[in-house]
């Protein structure tokens, strides 16, 4: 264990705890810069991770730090994407302006949703955001003049200050820049009074209120910030998928975002990015596994004779090619994480780190939390 003794305010204000941490992040940054050169085939997938990372950040601020669980965040992503494309293509605005507009419109809608949400808590809020997402999805379908309706809308490659980002690798760096920017702003916001107020609201609304936190302002702010970030992510997402259709921004996508936050670990920015990596890369892994697993199973069964081998190969092959399997795997992972690792991937990482730094003295109880027995909001 290393303890850092802070001797000056500069140390307290710095982004990183100490030189070791800073160097680690620098090394990670350099690795990310080099990555597309080493494995250009993965640049597309990893840029999706970055975009999902922005989405994860956005939901993390709302669900992980302010304690407002939204089941409708895909709607904000959709609003961002459609606004961006509308301004960019139909009105011919410059790219950066149109991204800013996407963020602004999404944030404005976020405030609109946040206002009635101020009085709701817990499950009522989840249902309200779900209802909102369904309404917005229907609006995407019906408002054909702007969104193109069910026919969808094609999106060109981004061109920024006359520089084209059509290349996958160039787009990768664009996404990376936005993710780092988002992390930087969010990280600083969370250390500032705003972030502390959010955390206070999450932990106890009444305690926060009695300490002078204005619930209405801070909750609306959290909604607006989260929606705005989602809007930016939406603009990038539009370029990434290249074609917008209303059914992309479904409840299932919102649930995937929640999955991201839970798998990563609620209440940590690392968790948002780790979860994004997990959710974005899992479909890639699954599609790889679809080809590989039947062969393995066939080889394993081949020990018992050639016919058994081919039979198992075909059986397993038919099973893994089922289209309905993927959501099931997502669901299974979600269930397993909630049951066995409520702190998520980042929590697991913290435990590993502590295990090695305290090597013979680690005890599992360090991370045990007191159980809070549930009461319903109903008192009669």
């Amino acid at each position, binding site marked *: 264990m290393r303890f850092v003794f802070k001797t000056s305010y500069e140390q307290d204000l710095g982004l990183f705890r100490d030189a070791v941490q800073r160097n680690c992040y620098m090394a990670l940054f350099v690795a990310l810069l080099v990555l597309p050169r080493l494995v250009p085939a993965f640049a597309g997938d990893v840029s999706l991770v970055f975009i999902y990372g922005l989405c994860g950040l956005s939901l993390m601020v709302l669900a992980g730090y302010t304690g407002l669980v939204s089941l409708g965040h895909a709607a904000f992503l959709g609003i961002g994407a459609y606004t961006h494309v509308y301004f960019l293509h139909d009105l011919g605005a410059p790219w950066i302006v149109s991204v800013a507009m996407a963020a602004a419109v999404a944030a404005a809608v976020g405030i609109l949703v946040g206002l*009635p949400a101020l009085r709701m808590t817990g*499950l*009522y809020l989840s249902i309200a955001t779900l209802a909102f997402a369904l309404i917005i999805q229907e609006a995407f379908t019906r408002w054909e003049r702007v969104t193109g309706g069910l026919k969808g809308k094609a999106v060109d490659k981004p061109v920024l200050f006359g520089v084209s980002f059509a290349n996958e690798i160039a787009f990768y760096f664009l996404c990376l820049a936005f993710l780092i920017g988002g992390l930087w702003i969010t990280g600083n916001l969370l250390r500032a009074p705003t972030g502390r107020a959010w955390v206070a609201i999450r932990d106890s609304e009444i305690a926060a209120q009695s300490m002078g936190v204005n619930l209405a302002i801070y909750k609306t702010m959290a909604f607006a910030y989260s929606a705005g970030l989602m809007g930016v992510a939406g603009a990038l997402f539009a370029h990434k998928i290249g074609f917008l259709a209303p059914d992309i921004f479904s409840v299932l996508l919102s*649930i995937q975002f929640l999955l991201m936050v839970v798998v990563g670990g609620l209440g940590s920015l690392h968790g948002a990015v780790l979860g994004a990596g997990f959710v974005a890369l899992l479909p890639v892994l699954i599609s790889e596994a679809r080809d590989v697993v039947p062969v393995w199973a066939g080889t394993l069964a081949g020990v018992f004779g050639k016919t058994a081998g081919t039979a198992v190969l075909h059986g397993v092959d038919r*099973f893994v090619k089922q289209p*309905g399997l993927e959501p099931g795997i997502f669901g299974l992972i979600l269930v397993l994480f909630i049951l066995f690792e409520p702190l998520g991937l980042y929590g697991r990482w913290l435990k590993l780190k502590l295990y090695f730094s305290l090597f013979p003295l680690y005890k599992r109880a360090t991370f045990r939390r007191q*159980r809070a027995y549930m009461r*319903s909001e*109903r*008192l009669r």
Partner: protein
Amino acid sequence: MNFAQGDLLMLGAFTCYMFVVWYGMGYWLAFALAIVIVALFGAVLDATVLRRVIGQPQFAVVMLTIGLGAIFRSFASITWGSEIYTLPTPFSARATRVAGVTVSHEYLSIIVGTVILCAVLYAFFTFTKVGVAMQAASQNQLAAYYMGIPVKRMFSLIWAISAGVAVIAGVLLAPVSLIDINLGFIGLKAFAAAVLGGFGSIPGALVGGLTIGVIELFSGAYLPQGFKDVAAYVVLLAVLAIRPQGMFGTVGRKKV
């Protein structure tokens, strides 16, 4: 709080279909078997999976049931495929004239079934000892423990009952809306109904459900196309903005 409710409904409808069509059982026998099987499944699910998250924030339960719902849907699509089935019932293609309005037996069965079910549930939760114990367990787990209520068993029982009710709803619904793996999404509307009425109030749930149904019908008839699907949600948002605890919910301030 169970986001997998709609998927249990779907499972129930499929199980019943399987017994009727594949194994050629009678409608009522298949109905009863489906209820028993899915209710048992609900209880087992609670005992093995959901019991572990007791004492964690409610958000965990929400996510857990969302995950379970996804697993059920995936399971159904692998077992029964993604075709659309119709369930033959004794009520099919018959109608009665009631006070000048022709009502088909399918709809009649739904109405009668719903009324009976609501009456039974209401009586169960208000008048029987077990029902009251369940209410206590859902209001305050720890206090219920102290009063000697076997909270864990109560929760399993609640799950069994709610799964059974979901099956009844699914089977009653099956002749009207056909059976496919997306039947579960009706559960979302059920949520809207429950929230509109206010959680934890059976009359509230009934009124909420009726309101949503009526709004959907009227907006389908009088508003431009496309509003039918969202009108209910718009009303839900409006009601929640004015009365955040639903129409019949009670307000309580949490103590710190």
